[in-house]
């Protein structure tokens, strides 16, 4: 099979450089050429079925009616509409979403028809709540309450702990999601002077065993329960807050608006509390979800927050 002594004659392009440097013209293999021609045919058929050529602001959509996609879309006002369009990626996505929603429906219906406790007691439904709730939570709640529901000091409450400003039962949580919340604390800068602010701040710190000045706290106790400042009116005589109006429990270890746990020194902790009382707070806003989520989604989220995040009561 040796080719050493055989003269190879191959067609050349006729170009010759440096006397004997020729450009060979090896034709493409037949199978390759045929494969190439087949792609022409494929493209022609493709144009009949799929969007292809851009024309100004529009494009060819294939032969009308040849390759239609039908899907159900939910409009902004909540009504459903069946749409038929030429094939396109978005409509294919919608069809897939429709299929997935249909697959989820039995579980969603089960959650909707059962009581909160019964959902929480059903291990398979809870698996669904864990995963579907996670998606709902990630889409709607994470911007404020953070990815794991851990919240952020001075911004949004932690949903994984056992403290609930507005109550931690299923019904409380559902009410919170449905109607939203707006937590406000008035500013005391015109009512209390600096010394009084220090005293009442020391008292607040003493309630949860944080470092404080005992003498000042004693004076602060009087201010707290006195009618001039009237702190007790909202936070209660025992300072344990009131879930009906969302006033904070001052006797526990959980802090939302003053960053007492984050402050390292006693002075910094005092300053945190004092600043809040001085200026008040008007940022405790949870939006209304009733208008954005369906009732069954809110129910699912309620169980997710209560049981999957694990802080419910």
């Amino acid at each position: 099979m040796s080719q050493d002594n055989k003269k190879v004659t191959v067609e050349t392009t006729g170009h010759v450089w440096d006397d004997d440097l020729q450009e060979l013209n090896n034709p493409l293999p037949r199978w390759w050429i045929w494969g190439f021609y087949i792609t022409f045919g494929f493209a022609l058929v493709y144009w009949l079925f799929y969007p292809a050529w851009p024309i100004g602001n529009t494009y060819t959509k294939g032969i009308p009616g040849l390759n239609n996609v039908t899907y159900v879309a939910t409009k902004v006002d909540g009504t459903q509409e069946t749409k038929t369009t030429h094939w396109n990626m978005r409509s294919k996505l919608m069809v897939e979403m429709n299929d997935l929603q249909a697959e989820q429906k039995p579980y969603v219906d089960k959650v909707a028809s059962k009581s909160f406790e019964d959902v929480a007691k059903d291990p398979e439904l809870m698996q669904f709540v864990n995963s579907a709730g996670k998606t709902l939570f990630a889409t709607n709640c994470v911007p404020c309450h953070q990815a794991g529901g851990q919240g952020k000091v001075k911004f949004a409450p932690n949903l994984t702990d056992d403290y609930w400003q507005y109550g931690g039962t299923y019904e409380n949580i559902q009410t919170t999601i449905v109607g939203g919340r707006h937590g406000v604390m008035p500013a005391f800068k015109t009512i209390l002077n600096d010394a009084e602010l220090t005293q009442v701040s020391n008292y607040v710190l003493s309630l949860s065993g944080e470092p404080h000045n005992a003498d000042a706290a004693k004076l602060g106790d009087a201010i707290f329960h006195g009618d001039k400042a009237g702190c007790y009116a909202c936070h209660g005589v025992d300072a344990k807050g009131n879930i009906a109006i969302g006033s904070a429990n001052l006797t526990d270890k959980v802090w939302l608006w003053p960053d007492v746990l984050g402050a390292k020194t006693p002075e910094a902790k005092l300053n945190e509390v004092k600043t809040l009382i001085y200026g008040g707070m008007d940022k405790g806003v949870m939006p209304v979800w009733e208008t954005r989520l369906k009732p069954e989604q809110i129910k699912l989220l309620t169980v997710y927050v209560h049981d999957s995040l694990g802080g419910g009561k």
Partner: protein
Amino acid sequence: MPDQAEKSLYQKHIPIVTRSVKGQFRTFKTAVMLLAYSVYFLLPWMPWARVSAASQAILFDLTTRRFFIFNLIVYPQDIFWLAMLLFIAAALLFFVTGLVGRAWCGYFCFQTLWSDMFIQIEHLIQGERPARLRLKNQNWNLEKILKIGASHALMILVSMWTAITFACYFSYAPTFVYHFFNGTGVAGGYFAVLVLTLLTYMAGGVAREQICLYACPYARFQSVMYEADTLAVTYDAKRGEGMKGRTIPIQGLKTQDERTLAGHGDCIDCGFCVQVCPTGIDIRNGLQYQCISCGLCIDACDNIMDSVGYPRGLIRYDSERNMASEVPEPPRVIWKRFKVIGYAVALLLMTGLLFYNIGTRSDTEVSVQQVRQPLYVMLSNGSLRNRYLIHIVNKTESDQIYTIDVDGISPRSLDMRFFKAVSIKAGKGLSVNASVNLSAEDASKVREFNFLITQASTQKVIKVETNFNSPREHD
């Protein structure tokens, strides 16, 4: 001098029409075929009592993602068993090839088995080699249409039953076959059967030896496992050719003595060994990559040697070294070689490991995933909470109840809500939320603890180590 550029690089297929032969290797091949076909075609119909799946001994259930092999249930997480099995298969191939050459190709490969079956179908309908050749070369008439058509129809039927049998391994065989012929089967089933029928017919009925020559990688790389001592189907050229080469037994060259005197070897050049070869080679040209070492040429030659009264073994299993030696010994398997022993050791080790692994598998699989966002939660009374997602897979054949406990911390610190004991269906998995609350003091001491998952029916306990996160001094 032919011009290389004009010569086509495409080798046009030369059809191979083989002659049938009788002998020990043919008998062995037939026995292997009968055994392999019995196992392959009958195994899906073997019943086996099951609780959570169809009562079939071998069932590769793709929908529930479980493979049932008698009493063994294989889950997707056991995929490394497949890796071990493939390793064992490879080591076995190397080991056997090192000893006796391409035994896999010649006797056991499904390409060989199905090709052999289809050649026998042709033999049955169209007759022996001369009749088949005559039929092939004659013009198309009713006889040719009927005979060729019938043999291909039969091949397609065998291919189809092969395909249906294959599909039966993945579905409950009686219902699958019933629905298949009833026209009520699933589309995937019909598609699988169609594709496999076509592939089987194309590979065994049309392409045949071309699969071995051009498509099969094993055919090419098995040659590197051959050593000088490896037994291979070999033509004894010294004996066959003599001084002056082979020749037909004309007058005066009939007995061995006459031929030896004249300087001719024992090969009477009858061409029988070529006619029986399924890959169409001449073994007298020496060892070739096309040779699948099926031994049919040995049978053919032995028959001829018997009929002319010469000793058998002109073509035989022998080693390269023995052939080259001055005084050849009777061929024997020489296994005391580094490579062969190495393959055997690897084979035994991995087989042992696989069996050990399967033997010590657990009925329950538990994984504990710590919720890391947030790493820990400070509760209102100052204690700390960590949360976990416990995933339990029930790999038994019946529904099971599992209880979840902790070890290393107070049992009261575990909060399972309603799932202290959970029931899990056969073959299913379940994830449950767990939270562990420790006082600030305990939390500072505990870094690790265990979850104990107890299967209620057997009281078997599975211990899973996990961590407890809390703010540390250095944080």
